[in-house]
Structures are given as structure tokens and as C-alpha cells.
């Protein structure tokens, strides 16, 4: 059975700290791995990763994928209170019908204290 596991489940840090969020997966027919940020409502897209070892970066956030060890990390440097959210990892898999679906992890809840 396909599964995506995120750790830690929750995390509390102070502003300025650096955090690393983990996502490991076991799936058949991997296509890509995606990270989302979810605040009060809808998840918003952060990164999509398809190749091992290539870092994606956006401001203070960065992410990398290891397809051999089947995991990805999301780094946030110099955290701010606005980074407080649930961070979701999703793995896109190819189905027999040729379409794709997403399998989500349970998320990591990050709280950044002022």
C-alpha cells in the first residue's frame, strides 16, 4: 500500500530558528513530490520535485528530493511568525488508467513564536 509519512508531527520554534521538515514515502509508480503550506484554509503550492539532488529554493524556503532513499526535506531558515502553518507533503503516483493521483502525508504543524 502506498504511503507518505511526515515528521515531526508538530514543532514549536522561536523566530530566527532554522527548521527541517521530513517526508518519506513508499509508493509504486512515483511521478513527483510536492510540498504545500496550509494556513487557515486551502493548501497553497510551494514546490514540486521530480529529480534527485536538485534543490528548489524560494526565499527562505528550500527543498530537496532523494529518490534512492525515498525522502524529501523542506528547510525554512530565519523563521518568522508568518511561517506558522501545517506543511503538507504529497507524492504524485501514476495510475493504471494513465492518470495521476496524490497521496498526502498527515502534515507537520509548525508554530513559530515571536
Amino acid at each position, binding site marked *: 500500500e502506498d504511503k507518505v509519512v511526515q515528521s515531526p508531527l508538530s514543532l514549536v520554534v522561536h523566530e530566527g530558528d532554522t527548521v527541517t521538515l521530513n517526508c518519506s514515502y513508499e509508493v509504486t509508480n512515483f511521478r513527483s513530490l*510536492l510540498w504545500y503550506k496550509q494556513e487557515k484554509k486551502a493548501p497553497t503550492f510551494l514546490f514540486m520535485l521530480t529529480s534527485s539532488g536538485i534543490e528548489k529554493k524560494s526565499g527562505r524556503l528550500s527543498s530537496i528530493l532523494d529518490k534512492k532513499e525515498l525522502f524529501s526535506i523542506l528547510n525554512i531558515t530565519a523563521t518568522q511568525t508568518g511561517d506558522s502553518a501545517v506543511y503538507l507533503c504529497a507524492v504524485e503516483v501514476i495510475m493504471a488508467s494513465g*492518470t495521476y493521483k496524490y497521496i*498526502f502525508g498527515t502534515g507537520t504543524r509548525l508554530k513559530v513564536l515571536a
Partner: protein
Amino acid sequence: DVKVTQSSRYLVKRTGEKVFLECVQDMDHENMFWYRQDPGLGLRLIYFSYDVKMKEKGDIPEGYSVSREKKERFSLILESASTNQTSMYLCASRLWGTDTQYFGPGTRLTVL
């Protein structure tokens, strides 16, 4: 900008009622998805549709059905709502062949 809207933000229904959750997207996306999100369980796929009148079961389709009569609208139907269907329901859409899903704001459904 892609916009995905859902008919209600909050909904309270009684056990046994038929419930319709509507999702509309305005970007001509072929693929649409329905998820539920529960604490400790993350997002779980209920059904998805890769084009008009097409539907495919996700991981937890039991107790739900869907309808996709028009490209922009994907409806989730609870034929007879039960208390274990109390959850946050999220709709998403995606352009065929691309990788990014766009989510709606969610509907928090409570079944009493």
C-alpha cells in the same frame, strides 16, 4: 489566477440527510479532486474526475458519490450522511498534464 470555489464554508446536517457539496473552477481544468481532511489522517482522496462525465474512485469512496456533468463543476454527494462523515472537505483542480493542484477554501461539514 486560478479560482476554485466551494459552495459553503460551513455546513451542519443531520444523520440520514442527503448532502451536496459543490466545487467550481474557472480555468477550464480537466482534472478535479475531492479530499477530506481529518486530524492525524491528513488529506485523503475520495474521488477524482479526469474529464467531464469521467470519475474514478480514490482511497476512501465508501459512502460518497460524485457528479461531473460540466467541466467547471464537480459535485460530491453524501447519499445518507453519517456522523463519521463530519470532516473538512477540500476540492482541487488541475490542468491536464501539469503538476500543480489548486485548492478551494474547504467546506467544514458537521453531521449531527
